């Protein structure tokens, strides 16, 4: 196989979205072919990168040829690659969906159609930049690109509720950034480096500066990742945004913030993760899991349910921290990463399908959704598959992820965390079951004539959900191998 080198692929992944977005913006029109070609190219690049990483493992690239700590590095890690892949898949699906969703060329929808793609690509670029970054400050800038693009996407419909949600999201995101930046400042003040590897080697887990810095970084990211009890912005932003936007936001943007937390605590800050802090993070996760689950159970509107389910799912992901305190970190990190990837695919599928269903039903209330009939059945199929993945039923990716975490909990005898995970899974069962039950039993006839559901509205969600289900087997194999675990992360 003669693929372009990893360095070239990374450059493509981070610059192509920005270039394409600028081009689209400057041209002022919306050439779909260009858009989709860019999305496709990005996906291909991500896949190629995945293959390269599979073959070569971790690689590091100096930007401008400057060595750290002076210059900035890109680090292509397996976990980052998994996220890049998930981003590419969701990005492509969202682009296709968006092209089919904003149909009209005039009016507000025309405006949305025109602006959606540049913003989408910007968010994509920000995410890609984030997943390869290995520098505290560079991450800050990448986070801001991502946040700002997301905010604009939330505000896309320019309806009052959407604007309100966007504003709250923006403030929350910036708040998180400020606190994160404080952490960067503290760590820079302590060590005078920003590079992850340098930081990892220099880190003295016992001095106050590093501790305070770590706390600030974490708390800032907690706010950005909407971890309970700082989830105050998420339901509104995700529930009010346009469906493709919610898919990106819920699937990737929140995950990116969380991924960063993984990256930090399993990378440069790994030496600092002690029982107390791990437990605190785990308690937050438990709270998120239960609280988000209960609230999801109570929602009456489809997208709000899905939004609260995000709160809940990230609670699950938070449990990696207590599990990583004493045990073998590699499988925990693998589990966390796979959980994020699974969530990205499944949640994006769920939101995309939800958008289709809402359009087909003309209502967002769960009780008034059309049933498993007509073309909406494809959307329901996607919902069912995505639900299975979110719950973590075998053989989905979610199962593989939860499997790893459960195993870690068992080997460490972390019974409490085990119980929390099980309870959370049950809650997930409950609210998704409720959704399916309500929707399938109380199916409303839907408006007549039924809105046209084009393949672009149906296929992306279904394919994402299928991917979430199918890749699980492969991932499972991969993990059981043990060989993948051994080289999963450079830091561990």
């Amino acid at each position, binding site marked *: 196989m003669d693929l372009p080198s990893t360095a070239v692929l990374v450059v493509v992944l981070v610059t192509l979205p920005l270039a394409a977005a*600028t081009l689209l913006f*400057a041209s002022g029109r919306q050439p779909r072919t260009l858009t989709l070609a860019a999305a496709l190219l990005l996906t291909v690049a991500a896949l190629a990168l995945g293959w390269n990483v599979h073959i070569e493992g971790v690689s590091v690239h100096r930007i401008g040829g400057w060595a750290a700590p002076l210059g900035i590095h890109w680090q292509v890690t397996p976990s980052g690659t998994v996220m890049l892949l998930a981003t590419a898949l969701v990005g492509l699906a969202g682009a296709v969906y968006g092209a089919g969703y904003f149909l009209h060329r005039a009016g507000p929808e025309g405006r949305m159609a025109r602006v959606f793609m540049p913003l989408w690509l910007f968010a994509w670029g920000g995410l890609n930049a984030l997943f390869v970054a290995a520098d505290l400050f560079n991450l800050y800038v990448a986070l801001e690109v991502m946040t700002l693009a997301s905010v604009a996407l939330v505000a896309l419909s320019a309806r009052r509720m959407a604007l309100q949600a966007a504003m709250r999201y923006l403030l929350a995101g910036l708040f998180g950034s400020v606190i994160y930046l404080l952490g960067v400042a503290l760590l820079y003040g302590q060590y005078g480096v920003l590079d992850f590897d340098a930081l990892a080697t220099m880190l003295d887990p016992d001095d106050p500066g590093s501790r305070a810095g770590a706390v600030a970084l974490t708390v800032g990211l907690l706010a950005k990742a909407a971890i309970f009890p700082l989830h105050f912005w998420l339901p509104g932003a995700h529930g009010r945004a346009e469906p493709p936007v919610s898919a990106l936001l819920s699937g990737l943007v929140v995950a990116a913030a969380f991924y960063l937390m993984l990256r930090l605590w399993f990378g440069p800050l790994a030496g600092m993760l002690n029982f107390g802090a791990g437990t605190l993070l785990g308690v937050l996760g438990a709270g998120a899991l239960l609280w988000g689950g209960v609230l999801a159970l109570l929602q009456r509107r489809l997208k709000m349910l899905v939004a609260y389910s995000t709160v809940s799912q990230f609670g699950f992901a938070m449990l990696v921290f207590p599990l990583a305190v004493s045990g073998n970190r590699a499988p925990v990190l693998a589990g966390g990463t796979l959980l994020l990837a699974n969530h990205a695919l499944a949640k994006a599928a769920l939101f995309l399908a939800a958008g289709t269903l809402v359009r087909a039903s003309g209502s967002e209330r769960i009780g008034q959704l059309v049933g498993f009939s007509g073309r909406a059945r494809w959307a329901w199929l996607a919902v069912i598959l995505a639900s299975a993945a979110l719950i973590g039923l075998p053989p989905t990716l979610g199962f593989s992820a939860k499997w790893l975490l459960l195993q870690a909990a068992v080997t460490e005898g972390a019974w409490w965390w085990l119980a929390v995970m099980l309870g959370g899974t049950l809650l997930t069962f409950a609210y998704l079951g409720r959704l399916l039950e309500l929707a399938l039993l109380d199916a409303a006839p839907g408006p007549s004539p039924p809105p046209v559901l084009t393949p672009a509205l149906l296929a992306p969600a279904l394919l994402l959900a299928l991917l979430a289900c199918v890749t699980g087997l492969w991932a499972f194999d991969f993990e059981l191998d043990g060989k993948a675990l051994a080289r999963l992360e450079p830091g561990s």
Partner: protein
Amino acid sequence: MHPVEVTFDALLLFSMVVLAWQGVHARNMFRAVVSFMMFGLLTAVAWVRLEAPDIALAEASLGAGLTGALLLATLGRLGPERRGPRRRRAMKLSMLPWLALGLVGTTVLLAVTLSLPAPGLGEAVLAAMPAAGVDSPVTAVLLNFRAWDTLLEIGVMLLAVIALWSLGQDVLASTSRLPAPALPALVRVLFPLFVLSTFYLLWRGGHGPGGAFPAGALLAAGLVLALLAGARVPERMRGAPLRWAVGGGLFAFLIVAVGGMWAAGAFFAYPPQHASILIAIVEIAAGLSIGVMLTALFLGGEPTEVRRGRT
């Protein structure tokens, strides 16, 4: 440090803190905004005291220019602040623990920052300067060592423009009747100076405090001033030309960055013999683009509307 210096710093920082508090909590919104703008001015002085003239320049060109303009223009678009019957928030007993915790937090933060050894990268930068292609360390960091940050930062700005424009047409640009002929007269006099100083700061950036960002901010201030004095975005500039001007900086940056891949074998690497000219090109493109982007931010939306004729 001389006692006078210490006193100066103390007074400066005290005023800043007071103004910051006012800027957030002043009862009257306008008072808050003015306080915040004054806070910005003093911040620029604080940067000077911290031997960071680059930042001072940027802060000055923004704080005295575009930030204030944006805030005041926004304020003009807001109705009166709606607050219920004025809540005289008496110091409730239940607030005390939170207050105490906040104090603890601040104290901890202070204590931690005081304990930081702050080794820094000063020496590393100095050592790498000969290879950088510019004389000013800050410019070298911005456009060479950490150029990727700067590219993303331009991206953020462009993104902000797209985000604002995505919300609809320009909201802050529409105008009232001109108050006096004095205003256009002033702008006619100042505008060439704005342009000239923009170039001046770009030139300075190569070997001292200056560079694309303050230059762009200054240019933007000039353009905004012209808009405020009644100028319009010309019809033939709306649409694609303006969009290209807005996006051009990032585009140029990207081309140079990716070009480094072919020319020097690494993303964002400048071939040594062309480093300074490439940096100059990037700087000019970025500066001009930043100016246009900041102006676009001030417009607050896409200028598409056909308006009444000039006043």
